[in-house]
């Protein structure tokens, strides 16, 4: 099954879950599917669980065990039962959950290993301590998220004054680094659209253009594609030039090379390897 549940499949998937909810559950929690608010993907949520740490925390609370003394074997079994349940329900188990499963199984086997009899008592580190630390950290951040949520709620009840005259002669936007990149991408997209929209009579055929490119690359040994594109007389010709580059790359006659990010792209002839 694919990573994302397609919208079309949603109806098929939701029903069995809703039915199953009354009968199948692990440790009292039931899974559900919901559209992710942040994207158009559908997200599989197991109860309230955002990820494997959430699920683990839940199981630990449910089993009423001490977080500093986790019975690894028992919790691992519960965890795996849960993943099985997901698969039974034909839900995609996110990779993060599987990684945690592997870590738990490893931890479980390490707990079974006899301790080094020569090691000093204080030198023996509990193999669970890293996991415990991660769980506690995770829970703290969950609490912090709750705090942010309540702050935002209060803040949404506070209003600033409406725009006044003095604001309008200052139509500016605050800028961050990613704004710069986004804006640049927008320009490129806009540019591309303009090129696509122009339909003219053919001046140079594709075959002619491919020949031209092939000759230029061969004679120069290395061709700056920017230079090649700059020769184009019209937008249409530019498109043909671009397509011919793609074509020669596809035919493995040339290869493209960019020595640095955002640097010029160079085309070089591919030396045919003797068969």
């Amino acid at each position, binding site marked *: 099954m694919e990573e994302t549940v397609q919208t079309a499949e949603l109806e098929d998937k939701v029903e069995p879950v809703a039915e199953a909810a009354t009968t199948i559950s692990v440790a009292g929690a039931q899974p559900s599917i919901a559209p992710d608010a942040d*994207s158009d993907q559908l997200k599989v949520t197991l109860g309230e669980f955002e990820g494997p740490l959430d699920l683990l925390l839940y199981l630990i609370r449910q089993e009423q065990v001490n977080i500093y003394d986790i019975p690894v074997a028992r919790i691992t079994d519960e965890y795996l039962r849960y993943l099985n349940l997901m698969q039974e329900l034909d839900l995609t188990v996110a990779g993060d959950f599987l990684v945690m499963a592997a870590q738990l199984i490893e931890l479980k086997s390490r707990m079974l290993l006899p301790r080094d009899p020569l090691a000093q008592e204080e030198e023996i580190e509990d193999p669970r301590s890293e996991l415990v630390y991660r769980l506690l950290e995770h829970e703290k951040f969950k609490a912090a998220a709750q705090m942010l949520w309540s702050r935002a709620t209060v803040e949404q009840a506070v*209003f*600033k*004054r*409406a*725009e*006044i005259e*003095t604001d309008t002669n*200052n*139509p*500016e*936007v*605050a*800028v*961050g*680094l*990613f*704004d*710069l*990149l*986004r*804006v*640049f*991408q*927008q*320009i*490129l997209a*806009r*540019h591309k659209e*303009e090129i696509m929209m122009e339909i003219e009579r053919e001046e140079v055929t594709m075959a002619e253009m491919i020949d031209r490119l092939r000759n230029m690359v061969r004679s120069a040994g290395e061709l700056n594609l920017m230079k090649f594109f700059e020769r184009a007389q019209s937008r249409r010709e530019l498109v043909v030039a671009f397509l011919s580059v793609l074509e020669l790359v596809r035919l493995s006659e040339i290869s493209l090379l960019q020595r640095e*990010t*955002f640097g010029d792209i160079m085309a070089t002839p591919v030396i045919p390897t003797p068969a």
Partner: protein
Amino acid sequence: MSPKAEAAVEELEAEPLDSSDAEVESTREIGATELKAIAEALIFVADEPISAKTIADVVKVDREAVETAIAELVEEYNTRNGALQLREIAGGWQIATRPEHHEQIRAYLRSRPSAKLSLASLETLAVIAYKQPVTVPEILEIRGVQSPSAIKTLLDKRLIIAKGRKETVGRPMMYRTSKEFLIQFGLKDLSELPSMEDFQDLAGGETQ
């Protein structure tokens, strides 16, 4: 304010508004003090002068009650004699500064932090940042629009500098980003600019 009135205010405030209901309940009595506060809040947030009638409609009370509340507010603003006034203009009410301090206000508006850029300037800056060194005709080619004033703004704000001429028709000036650009965007050097890959990592969903 009399102790009695003060107690009434406290009572009103202690009483929670019906937060579960999105619609403002018309049945609940709205006291004079509360009405005054709501009127002030609405005048403050409205983006144009707001009439007593509009306020009355929102709060679902008589227009007369609103007019009384506003009259009291005007009196309060005048008595307080602060920087703000409540004034009637174009058939509505508005909060504005008094004329006395226009000099300082203008001085402030002129001195406003200049780290901000118009969209045109931002676009031009983006092209220069990612394609430097680059000439005006090349920027025009990429952006699809002329950007002379944007380039002037960027030069004024010292975000870009002219650096040599391109050996091509007309020998146009080449532009690149300045040290000030690095400082303002918190970059150690240009290699710290986010790349298309950084962006795709976020957009595409897969990291590592």
